[in-house]
Structures are given as C-alpha cells and as structure tokens.
C-alpha cells in the first residue's frame, strides 16, 4: 500500500492539488480531501466502461484491432483529409496538447478545444477589452466581496469556496465559514442545510413553497466588514443558498443588468424602473456594495457564456470591472471547466498566437470564431474527417453538428467508451491523464500544476502523447510516400 500526497485532481478548473490517494496493487482504493466528482473519477476510472483495446468500425460494428492497425487507419484518414477537424484537448496534459498542435499543422486541419463550448466566449470578450484578473490566492488573501455570476461552484467546482474564496483564511481576510454556520442555524425550521447538501437534491423531500419572483431587497449585511457573497443566477442554486444576497436575473438578461450597473457606477440616471427583473433602487444598493468594498471579484460561468449575448456578456462583465477599478480594486475570473482547458488555450496560444479555433488549412494559423471554430465547421458541413481526443462532443455538441461528424471518418482517443467513441470509426484507448499519466495542467487562473501518475496504465494502453506522436509519424510517412508518387511521373 502506498499513500501519495499532493496529487492534482484532473477534473475541473480548480485543479485542487492537495488530494491524498491510497494505492494498493496498482489500484486506487481511497481518496482523501477531494469532492464527490473527484472521488467518482478516482473510483470510476477503472470501471467496466473503459476501452481495453483499439477498435475499428467494420460493417457497421466496432471490432477490436491491433494498435498498429488503428494508428495507421487514423493516420490515413487525417493525411488524406481535405479539411479535418481535430477537437478536444481539454482533459489531457500540455505535453499531448503540444503534439496536437504539430499534428494539426501537419495535416492542415482545424485545431479546436472545448473552450469553444465553454469559455471560448470569455476569451473573445478578453480580446475586446482585456481582463483584469489575478491568481486565486490573491482573492483568498484579499477579497472582501465575492460574486458568482451565472455559475454554481457547488455543482461544477465543489471546492472553490473552501479553497479560494469565501471559506478560506487569507492574510488580510478571514473565512466566513463560522458566520455561515451561524446563518444556517438561524434559518431554523428548515432541515439542516449542511446535511442536506450531502443528499442529491432531486431525491430529497422538499417542503419549501416556491418563492415568488418578487425581488428581495438587498440585506444590510452587504455593507458589513469582512467577506460578502453575492450570487447572480437565473435560478436559486446551492451556491445561492449560501449567499448574503441572491439576485435572480431574468433568463438571458444578464447583459442589460450589467450594463445598467455600469451606468449607475458612472452616476447616470436610468429612465427605467427595473432591469432584468431587478428594481433599479435595489441595483443602486448593489452598486454601493460594489464600490465600497476593498477588493471585489466576479467569478462567472456558462450562465454568461452560453446565454443570449454570449461573448458580449463577458465583454460587458469585464467592462464593468474596468469601470469599478476607478473606484476600488476589482477583478474577474472565468470558472474554467475541464481541468486543462486553460492549458489547451495556453499551449495553442504560445505555438500559434491563438487560444482556440485555429485553422491550419492555409499552412499558417488562422483564427476567427464563427469561421474557424469546430462547431461552425461541422454545422456548415465543411469538414471531411474528425479526430476527437480528451473530450466528448458526442455528448456535448448539438445534434446537427454530430450528424455531420458521423457522416465522415471519426477517430476517437479516450480512456472511456464515451458517447463519441460509441459513434466513432477508429477508437484508440488511452491512459487516464492525472491518474496513469503525469504531465502539466493549468488551473483556471493559468497557474501551472504538475499532474501525478499514481498507478500504471493497463498493459498495452498508451498515453495521449504517445498515440499522437505515433499518428504524426505515420502521417508523415503516408504524406512523403504520396509526394514521391506525385513527383514520379
């Protein structure tokens, strides 16, 4: 038995690196410090849904083949493609991502990562107005006003509050854990929230009558010393339950709400009485809280990037932060999803200048979301082959995009038989990054962290990096043979 400390959890953008993993006979048997998803990953990685050998679709069925055959088939598809898409990259390490850029360049394809369906709009917003941000520790030490906008860390980044924000001890700000407990106690009558948190919400009996949408006035606690927590969302999330103030914004109206706040910060008068369902009088109090804090931060998620306005929502959120900095210190940060989607953006940017949606078809990197992004290429039906690695567009892309994807050869590299693999033509199993493979990943604040290998992969299973290198090598062989042929006559 061995106990391995300071393991970096390969799931979400929090990249918690304090996980303790116990290994017996090359198998993880216990995980400490992690959240529910973390435990599921370390327990689930060895499940029966794992792919054990390479598969190729023959006569409509995926049948086992040798690794060499699968690699050759994949390389042949890519080398011959006129406009291939190479998508995914977010649940693997930077080492594999580096090879990925080279492969995409070699085959003249569209290289895109999962940012396109999560924080691609955030990167685009940043390209319009920049981004005043920091590392998470800066927030831990200094922030006295924390806002989660369009995101629910309790569900998607379960340890975010505990490690980086409201419930952590900083040099200049204390944890709000105790006062939160007191608040929970005060909300007597209802079942203990804390224990309720451990129960799956839809299974738990719930007696609260649906609250009306009539807006609650901002509480006086917004002006208190110490850390304050505000949540803005279209529905009351678990995170919102913990907040000092919850603003229920009308769906798709975040843009108007933020723009109105910007105008109020600049002491402009609004003609309207409410914005996005929120009375302007209440907004004024929110604005007071924003400008009177010592150090504020907005964390935002898919609630902004995927709803009407998309990247403009991010642009306005960042503009709001820019405005606030003439009054106090205020920062903003996207809640990055996949554990290394930041890394995919970073590696792509240092090698090409662009973070996602990079089109190599003209021999040099080109970038224009809407034109060179995988989603649009698929929806317009332009591509003629797809490689998917370390992502599952079969489960995350809209139907029409998948319909085009399966019309042409589809190569899938993944440890699990995920939805895309079920649809694939060539399926190559890979080792679990962060469990069976070491490497580097970037946290949501772009802090690089080492991933650990805690167990050996099953025999014969290669890493993403190894598989990609083999495909790249094979592609070059196929291309040089082809060039010889065309030159011969």
């Amino acid at each position, binding site marked *: 038995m061995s106990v391995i*400390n*300071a393991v*970096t959890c390969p799931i979400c953008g929090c990249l918690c*690196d*304090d996980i303790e993993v116990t290994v017996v006979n090359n198998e993880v048997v216990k995980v400490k410090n992690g959240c529910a998803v973390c435990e599921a990953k370390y327990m689930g990685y060895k499940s029966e849904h794992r792919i054990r050998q390479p598969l190729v679709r023959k006569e409509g069925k995926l049948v086992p083949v040798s690794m060499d055959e699968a690699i050759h088939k994949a390389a042949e598809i890519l080398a011959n493609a006129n406009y291939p898409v190479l998508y995914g990259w977010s649940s693997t390490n*930077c080492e594999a991502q*580096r090879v990925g850029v*080279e492969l995409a*360049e070699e085959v003249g394809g569209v290289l895109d990562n999962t940012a396109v369906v999560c924080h691609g709009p955030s*990167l685009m917003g*940043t*390209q*319009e*107005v*920049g*981004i*005043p*941000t*920091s*590392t*998470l*520790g*800066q927030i*831990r*030490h*200094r922030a006295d006003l924390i806002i989660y906008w369009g995101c629910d860390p309790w569900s998607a980044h379960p340890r975010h509050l505990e*490690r*980086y924000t409201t419930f952590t001890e900083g040099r*200049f700000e204390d944890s709000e854990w105790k006062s939160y407990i007191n608040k929970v106690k005060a909300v007597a009558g209802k079942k203990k929230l804390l224990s309720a948190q451990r129960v799956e919400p839809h299974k738990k009996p719930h007696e609260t009558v649906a609250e009306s949408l009539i807006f609650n006035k901002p509480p006086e606690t917004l002006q208190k010393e110490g850390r304050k927590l505000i949540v803005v969302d279209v529905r009351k999330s678990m995170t919102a339950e913990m907040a000092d103030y919850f603003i229920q914004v009308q769906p798709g109206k975040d843009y108007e709400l933020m723009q109105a706040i910007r105008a109020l910060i600049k002491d402009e008068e609004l003609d309207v009485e409410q914005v996005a369902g929120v009375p302007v009088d209440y907004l004024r109090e929110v604005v007071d809280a924003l400008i009177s804090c*010592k*150090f504020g931060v907005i964390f935002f998620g898919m609630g902004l990037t995927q709803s009407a306005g998309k990247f403009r929502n991010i642009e306005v959120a960042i503009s709001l932060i*820019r405005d606030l*900095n*003439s009054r*106090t*210190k205020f*920062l903003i940060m996207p809640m990055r999803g996949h554990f290394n989607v930041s890394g995919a*953006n*970073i590696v792509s*940017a*240092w*090698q*090409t*200048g*662009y*973070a996602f949606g990079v089109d*190599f078809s*003209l*021999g*040099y*990197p080109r*970038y*224009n979301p809407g034109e060179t992004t995988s989603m649009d290429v698929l929806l317009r039906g332009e591509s003629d082959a797809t490689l998917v690695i370390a992502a599952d567009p079969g489960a995350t892309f809209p139907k029409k995009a998948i319909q085009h994807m399966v019309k042409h050869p589809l190569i899938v590299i993944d440890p699990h038989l995920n939805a895309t693999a079920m649809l694939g033509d060539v399926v190559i199993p890979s080792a679990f990054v962060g469990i069976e493979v070491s490497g*580097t990943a*970037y946290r949501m604040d*772009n*802090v*690089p*962290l*080492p991933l650990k290998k805690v167990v050996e992969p099953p025999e014969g299973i290669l890493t993403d990096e190894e598989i990609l290198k083999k495909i790249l090598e094979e592609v070059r062989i196929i291309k040089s043979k082809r060039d010889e042929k065309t030159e011969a006559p």
Partner: protein
Amino acid sequence: MTEILIKNGFVFDPLNKINGEKMDIAIKNGKIVESVNEQKAKKIDAAGLTVMPGGVDIHTHIAGGEVNTGRMIRPEDHVKDVVSKTSITRSGTGYSIPSTFVTGYRYAKMGYTTVMNPSMAPLGAKHTHEELNDIPLLDKATFPLLGDWWFVLEHLQRGDLEGCARHVAWMLETTKGYAIKIVNPGGLESWGFGRNVHSIDDTVPNFDITPRDIMCGLAKVNKMLNLPHSIHLHTNNLGIPGNYVTTLETMKALENVPTDGRPTCHITHLQFSSFAGDNWGNMKSAAEEISKYINNHNHITFDMGQIVFTDTTTMTADGPFEFTLYQLSGHKWVNTDVETETSGGIIPMHYKRTSAVNALQWSIGLELALLVEDPWKVFMTTDHPNAGPFFAYPKIMAWLISKKARMATLAKCHKKAQKRSLLPSVKRELSLYELAIVTRAGQAKALGLKNKGHLGVGADADIAIYDINPEKIDVAKKYKTARKAFGNAAYTIKDGKIVVKDGEVVQHTDGKTMWLDVKTAEQLKVDEEMKLKFKKYWTVEYENYPVYDHYVKVPEIISVKASV
C-alpha cells in the same frame, strides 16, 4: 560533430579587444577552438563580411504567462503577420508578440543567439520554462520577480539580510531562474489593494518597508549570493513625467551598496524612467541629467527600452503603471496579480511619430545611449515588446551608427518633439566595435555569461556573420545597407551549427536554458521552513511549486557558491 572554419572575416570581438581584424575563427564541438583541421572542416568564406559574437539580449519578454496572455488578447495583431510552415520550420504568427517558434526564428535571423526573459512570476515559472523549451535556436534564461515577494518584504522588514538571501537562493533554484528582478519595488504589493508607491521612501501598505529598503536590501543580497548578474531593476514611477528624479534618487541610494568594482544594479528600459516635466504636455527629456550621473558613476548599467514607431503591446509586472496606461488610453487592459509575489498588466500601444510624447520617448532612448560615454554601460533593447518588437533592432542599430538615420526619422516626428530633442546636437555615431559592445559583448559581461558575447577560445560557438564590408562601406552613410544586413544575417551559427544562412532558417536546434544553482549554508533549513509556511502563502502545495528538472529540455546549470 562537424568542424567549421570561418575564414577571412572582419572580426569584431570587443571582449577580446579585436576591432575589425581580418582573421579566421575555428569551431569544434560547439565551441570556439584555437584551430581545426582545414581539410576536414566545413569552410565559410567570410571575406568581405563582418563577424561578431552572436547577439545577446539582456531584456526581452518572450515567454510566460504575461507574454502569452498578450498573445491571446491580440488576434488583430497576429492576423497581419503570419508565418507559414516549411519543411524545416513550424508555422506561427508574428507581430508584436510572436509565437514561440517565430520568436526563435526571427532572433536567429538577426544573428542573435542568447536572450534573457526578464520577468517571471515564480508561481508561473513552469509555464515560462515550457515556452522557453519551444523557442528554438536560442540560449535562454529567465529572471523571477522578487522585489515584492512577501518573504523578501518580511525578511527585509526584520533587517534579516542573510535570511532574505537564503530565501532568494531558494527561489532562484526553485524557479530555475537566473537573476533577481525587481519591478516598481513596493508598488506591486501596494497594487494588491489598488494602490501604488510614488517615491523610493513611501511606506508599503501592510509592510513597514520602503522601495529604498527593498532595492538596497536585494542589491546587498545579490552580492552575498555572488550572482553573476546584478539586480535587474525597473524603477518606481516608471513612465510618469518627472520620474527622472526618482531614477536619480534610486541610483544614489544604490551607491551605498558595497561593491567589488562590478556594477550593483542594472536599470532596465531606462528611457521610460528618464522623463522631465510634470505632465504629459510639458514632458521633456532628462537624458542629460541621467547620463551625466551614469558617466560619473560605475555602479549602474542600463538598457535602452528604445521606442520604435509601430503598433505594439506593453506588458510589465508593474500592474499600477499598466492601469495608468489604461486610464490614459481606454484600450484593452489586462491585469494579472499573483499571490504573495507580484502583479502584472498588459495594454496595446501604438507609438506614433505624430505624437509629441511618443516622439520624445524615441529621442530619449537614443539620447541616453549616445550621451553615456562608456558603451559597456549601455545595452540595446526595446524592452520587447513594450517599446517595440525585437525584430526592429536593425532600425535601432542604424540610428546608433548613423546620425543621418536619426535625423531622417526625427524630421518626420512631431514638431514639439523635434524642438525638444537633444539629438540634433549629438554627433556621436557608434562604430561597429561599439555596436558589438551594446548588442552582445557588454550584455554578456553584465550578465556574467562567461562563454557568451565573445569569440575567444572556449566560448560557445554562437556567431553572427553580416554582409557588411567595413573596408568598403561607411555604415554611417550607408545605414540602409547596414540595416538590411543586420536583419538578415549571412550566417548565424548556434553551438557550432549553421542555423541561418542568407537570412533564412536552415536548421533546427533547441537552445539551452541556463539557470543558477546557488549553494547557501542551511539550505535544508530553508526548505523545511518553506514547507511549514507554504500553505499560509500560496494556494498550491509545496511539492507542486518547484520547476522540476524535466521542465527544462536542455538545461545548463550554473553553480554559484554564496557567501551566506
């Protein structure tokens, strides 16, 4: 390994006092040797060509989080400058912040072989090294930002110089760094809460310490650790009219640091710290005052931070300064504060001849370089990409060697700047020998790089050959010819390999990354102490913080024995 013999070139090797002599240079196993077997060696006919050591850049932001964020936010900057894949080279994009491969190629094309990445947040050090690995054809090193690191502030606050030194040594090793970088000392910690310091004697909020304490303390620490380079300083009040007073005070404050005769401080991108006047309207050059001081003292070296008229991107750890630029320009603004360590910011910037301020800045950089008499104190940089992209160096070389070139540019500048510029009265034109000092020899010397910047036996075979015949052309008159030659090296040789021929990359090679292993007493004690304290300071685990060996593809470890 192939042997190479470079025959009959005009050699400019200032560290060995060789000034344009026609001679041969022999290379074997990546080093310069006394001689090689003429029969076996590959011969390069350098007759009529200028041979210099490979260029050395003491200050260029080419890798790491800040640089890469700069890339990410500027698609409109890349789209106008694209680089296609070839059978030898990777594709990429250029303009103000080129992608990593393109960075390597463009430096090599100018005959540069060694560059210093001067700004690295320790927490992001792995990132910096990952990018450095992807910059081909160059040797590299990187400087951790230490001036506002809480451990430095706390130790100096207590007056514990030795403790400070040991922790700095720990950090240099942990981040695989090369020198102590200080940016707006005290200002970055203040910026954590949105404030700044405005003189070297302001107190840093929450820490009872001043910028003066930090600079002098770290300069002393630098000596205690016997580091090859001095402290590398970006001054307080950078980029603000009237800041030359702060710069003079800074240099004076550092006079008190004991010295063994070597400089105690390198002031980087001095142009940005040499503004007189008290607002943007009446801003003037303080190059005269600053250069006078430097001419009379020997503890300072500096690099220019020369403005080039183009659309570029400013990026610095000086978060509060970037905020000032944001307030002035309203342009896209990035701020990146790093827990317990530093801050940072990015603003795109278009320097225009027609702007009085920009044109004056352009003049100030050149004035400083020309008014400081000793070329060993002056190094050519643009503080890439802050004052312009590095591939504009040939232009700056032309301005340095040719009054005609300077006056041609000045004539196109804003009238106010023309009137305020000191350049019309400056006759000096650097010789090729002096140019070799300010672009390689002096930089290598200031960095303490023993095998760089010269062509003596034992030096790294990093060589630039330019198509300039000093016997035939007067570069001061034919500055355009010289400019073209400096931008397209006839040959660039890296570690004994020909990597560029006639301005084209012809071979790939990974450069090395140099880092310091500083041996102090009680190293284990510092480790233990850091391990205990770590969680209180950072949000990552102690054992996940260091840059482990595998992060450096081709390392060159330089061991230093500290006196503490």
